[in-house]
């Protein structure tokens, strides 16, 4: 069995923001002597289970996590420090959070579901950047990692943001296919080129990372729809099968819903899936300008 030299740089995902732990954590070099089967999936390779470590000295990494309990609302929020041994742990921040909850403090509260970056539950602010905890690698041991809930959101408890307004705004754009023709019972056909227009739009998991990174959304969250909802709104505008294009455009024809975007582009920087809401918003603006 040929053993390959494991190249840590191959682990870099497309998102520039995922902090890489490969530099400092001395990724295991799978030697010919103990060549184990290369397991699929990046996470398992990165933990270094293939090559046993010589030193069992604990590598301590500290996390500072925002804590607040609504049962004692008069007590102000605080940052609590937790120390974990990196030798015993998976590479992602979500692994750390789960370990803290299991072993140190069971009252730590956070949302999580798929652990693979597809559900969008674990969106939070890690070291100043809005990402999914399950996709964010733990950075080097030298500095403590600061974990906050999504910025400028009401907090239900600890790291859980209140996203009801976000969901209400999503509902308001009517995110479903609307047809004027009566249903024929047959599939609504779409060419390959038309389907390609939806790439980069349908992958949105509604994690709210982009909307909560937009300063314009911070200051006007009640009226401005925010990059996530506008991305989805463009997804329905660009869908060739949808026949209510004019009505959808008409709904955005006011000062606040769409035009509070000032191309700050924090949304595209922070999207954990690598989507570009800012570009979609620009395309909506273009359609609005050239049609009416």
């Amino acid at each position, binding site marked *: 069995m040929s053993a390959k030299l494991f190249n840590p740089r191959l682990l870099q995902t497309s998102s520039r923001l995922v902090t890489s732990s490969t530099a400092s954590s001395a990724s295991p070099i799978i030697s010919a002597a103990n060549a184990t089967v290369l397991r699929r999936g990046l996470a398992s390779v990165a933990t270094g289970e293939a090559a046993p470590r010589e030193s069992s000295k604990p590598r301590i990494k500290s996390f500072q996590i925002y804590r607040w309990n609504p049962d004692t*609302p*008069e007590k102000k929020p605080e940052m609590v420090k937790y120390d974990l041994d990196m030798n015993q742990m998976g590479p992602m921040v979500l692994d750390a959070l789960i370990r803290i909850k299991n072993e140190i403090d069971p009252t730590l509260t956070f949302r999580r579901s798929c652990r693979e970056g597809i559900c969008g539950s674990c969106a939070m602010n890690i070291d100043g950047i809005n990402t999914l905890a399950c996709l964010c690698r733990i950075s080097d041991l030298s500095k403590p990692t600061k974990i906050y809930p999504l910025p400028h959101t009401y907090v239900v408890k600890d790291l859980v943001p209140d996203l009801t307004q976000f969901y209400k705004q999503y509902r308001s754009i009517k995110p479903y296919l609307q047809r004027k023709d009566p249903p024929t019972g047959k599939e609504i056909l779409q060419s390959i080129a038309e389907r390609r227009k939806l790439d980069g739009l349908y992958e949105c998991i509604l994690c709210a990372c982009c909307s909560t990174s937009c300063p314009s959304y911070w200051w006007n969250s009640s009226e401005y729809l925010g990059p996530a909802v506008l991305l989805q709104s463009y997804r329905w505008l660009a869908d060739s099968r949808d026949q209510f294009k004019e009505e959808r455009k008409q709904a955005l024809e006011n000062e606040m819903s769409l035009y509070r975007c000032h191309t700050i582009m924090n949304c595209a920087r922070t999207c954990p899936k690598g989507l570009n809401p800012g570009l979609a918003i620009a395309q909506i603006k273009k359609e609005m300008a050239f049609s009416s």
Partner: protein
Amino acid sequence: MKRLTGLQREVLSLYRTCLREARKKPEATRQNFIRFARDEFRSHLSIDRKDFDTIEHLLRVGRRKLEVYSGEGLRMLFDSFSGGSGGCRGGE
């Protein structure tokens, strides 16, 4: 009587709204709703008058709870302190 501040007026307005909604509930369980509202407000009496953040948070949470409890189908409220009727959401 000293003049009420804006925040105090909001709290009283929320309390009044809760009582009004309670009066719309069926006769048998009305007391449960009224007692629930009263207990919720009383449990936070100790908060400092100037602690705006906490008060605003509690107002927000209170309004959200009011939205939930004032639904048409919700007819009973289980009161943990009384022996009383079990709570169930009426016909959906």
